């Protein structure tokens, strides 16, 4: 699960991670209030106004309606309301949101941390994530902060420091020191940096996080270390033991169809193609998408109905797929193991009749337990449904209905 920057920062702060302070606002008026409070608290003269959406690239991204950037600077409280107005309610388009962009419902009014001083402020990169093949967390750090880390990894892999953490013994002080030395920190920055890395790792474990990305991490002109941005991703499987975190989910950031599918117990991902599909099992679902492509179509979605393909789930699946106007055909691919194909077939027929007027052709491929009985039920239903048993026959059917 993803959460917003302002939420991530609040949680990290509880773990002693130093952050750029800020107050969230959802109207120009509350933004002024936030700026005043922030000034009283921190003494900041300038204010950074940051769009809160679940996507990166906000600074370079632009609000479609107004042309404002997603992150802007206000050099006085008086400048805040107009700058906030140009962002709130607008659609922010960044390289991560796709052309459709994301609506900005909230902004974070944050203190200016790039103030001048004895040293130049410098940006770094720091993240903690799971290394799957080593089955342990890895801390990644780089002196190339504020940049797209994937580009750094490609062009200057030597500039990425990696430190693997034993999940049982935890982060050791020497490991935090190694990272701090490698980043070139000295004096107060070194002390604060080591503490920052320790607190961040404690938070990573405590929150059951799957990824933290602090980019940029800043060394201020007075040698303090703090998180200017915080991307926090939590392990969905562990949310049952973090009820408070589960409440941070913002469904306005998610595709409405995907939210609806989730409520029906379906795993659905919307795509841009013209052939919908409904499959049991994630691997077979991806393979079915591949079959659609090889047959001359493009998959309109990923949809895994899971272990219990019955009349209700099939109906819910149909309704969700049919809401997508691009869908020209639907391929249902069920390999019946524990689920019997004749029951799935009855479910398809029942759902079809209940929904009524389905205009697109439907191909039903049922294989496994009672496959032949299932095919018979489909064929005798009198509905505009094609039946197949072998996967290659289903692929052929898709080709036919698309041509």
């Amino acid at each position, binding site marked *: 699960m993803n959460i917003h920057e302002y939420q991530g920062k609040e949680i990290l702060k509880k773990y002693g991670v130093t952050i750029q302070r800020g107050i969230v606002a959802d109207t120009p008026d509350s933004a002024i209030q936030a700026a005043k409070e922030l000034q009283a608290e921190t003494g900041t003269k300038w204010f950074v106004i940051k769009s809160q959406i679940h996507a990166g690239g906000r600074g370079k991204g632009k609000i479609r309606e107004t042309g404002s950037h997603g992150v802007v600077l206000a050099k006085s409280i008086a400048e805040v309301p107009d700058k906030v107005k140009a962002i709130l309610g607008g659609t922010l388009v960044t390289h991560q949101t796709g052309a459709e962009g994301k609506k900005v419902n909230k902004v974070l009014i944050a203190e200016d941390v790039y103030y001048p001083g004895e040293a130049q402020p410098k940006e770094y990169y720091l993240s903690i*994530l799971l290394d799957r093949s080593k*089955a342990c967390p890895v801390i990644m750090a780089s002196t190339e902060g504020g940049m797209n880390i994937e580009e750094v990894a490609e062009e200057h892999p030597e500039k990425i420091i990696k430190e693997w953490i034993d999940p049982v013994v935890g982060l050791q002080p020497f490991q935090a020191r190694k990272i701090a030395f490698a980043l070139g920190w000295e004096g107060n920055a070194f002390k604060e940096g080591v503490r920052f890395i320790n607190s961040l790792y404690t938070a990573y474990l405590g929150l059951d996080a799957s990824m933290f990305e602090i980019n940029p991490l800043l060394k201020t002109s007075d040698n303090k270390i703090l998180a200017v941005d915080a991307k926090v991703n939590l*392990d969905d499987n*562990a949310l049952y*033991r973090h009820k408070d975190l589960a409440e941070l989910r913002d469904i306005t950031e998610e595709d409405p169809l995907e939210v609806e599918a989730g409520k029906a117990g379906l795993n659905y991902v919307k*795509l841009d193609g013209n052939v919908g599909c409904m499959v049991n099992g994630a*691997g077979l679902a991806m*393979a079915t998408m591949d079959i659609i492509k090889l047959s001359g179509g493009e998959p309109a979605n990923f949809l895994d109905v899971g272990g219990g393909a019955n009349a209700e789930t099939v109906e819910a699946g149909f309704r969700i797929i049919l809401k997508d106007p691009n869908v020209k055909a639907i391929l249902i691919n069920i390999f019946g*193991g524990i689920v019997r194909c004749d029951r799935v077939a009855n479910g398809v027929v029942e759902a079809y009749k209940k929904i009524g007027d389905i205009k697109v052709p439907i191909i039903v491929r049922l294989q496994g*337990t009672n496959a032949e009985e299932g095919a018979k039920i489909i064929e005798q239903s009198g509905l505009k449904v094609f039946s197949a048993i072998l996967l290659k026959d289903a692929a052929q059917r898709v080709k036919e209905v698309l041509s």
Partner: protein
Amino acid sequence: MSVLVNKNSRVIVQGFTGSEGSFHAGQMIEYGTNVVGGVTPGKGGSEHLGRPVFNTVKEAVEKTGADVSIIFVPPAFAADAIMEAVEAGIKVVITITEGIPVKDMMVAKKYLQNKGVKLIGPNCPGVITPGEAKVGIMPGFVFKKGRIGIVSKSGTLTYEAADQIVKAGLGISTAIGIGGDPIIGTPTKEAVELLMNDPETDAIVMIGEIGGNYEPVAARWIKEQGNKKPVVGFIAGQTAPAGRRMGHAGAIIGGAEDTAAAKMKIMEECGITVVDSPAEIGETMLKVLRSK
């Protein structure tokens, strides 16, 4: 021979009396698997499906001589169940449970390191050696006895592959569902290695998915070992969009080997016969064997 499970395996079921455990234990017994008992803490001393129930795995092992465990325990308690099985001396631990927190799995995986244990899964369909033992949730009738091994990240796609192998007139030696979670006990390479060393397996079907680097690692190992047995491979997710399943920074560790296209290319370069379409697994295997 065969690998991991066979007719001599003495199997216990952890989470025996729960609804999932009960149903699948019943199916396994019906298949002919030698299920010797089960474990449900607090229900020890009773009997379920005609088999004894124990409070602890240790007790179950002492009383029944069990050497294989299958776990249906709910996600919050599953990592604990894995470690309990390991501590009790079980050598093959097959975990069906889906949704175990990553943090728990990191600890469980570390716990079983260097203990000579094979953990299969979690979030997998299990292991079947047709005609001998089904220790999993797969439909047994699809898997006919033969000499083709299957290693797969996915459940129903494993059934699909087995069905095509059987329809091509071949059969299965052992099928291993390794599981689709970020942390699994036996990655592709380790599972393929078991089948490469199995005298009853002539060829291998290797099915992967986008994400992670298990398949490239396995492919390079196969090549290093001199391609001792023919391998037919398929990677699901050629049309899956980038960035939907994995976080931004997560893609770096897997590097450029994360996509289906990249994995398929590496596999081909390592001498694996890669199919574009999942509908062609069976026929391709037949062709590969005939051309030998």
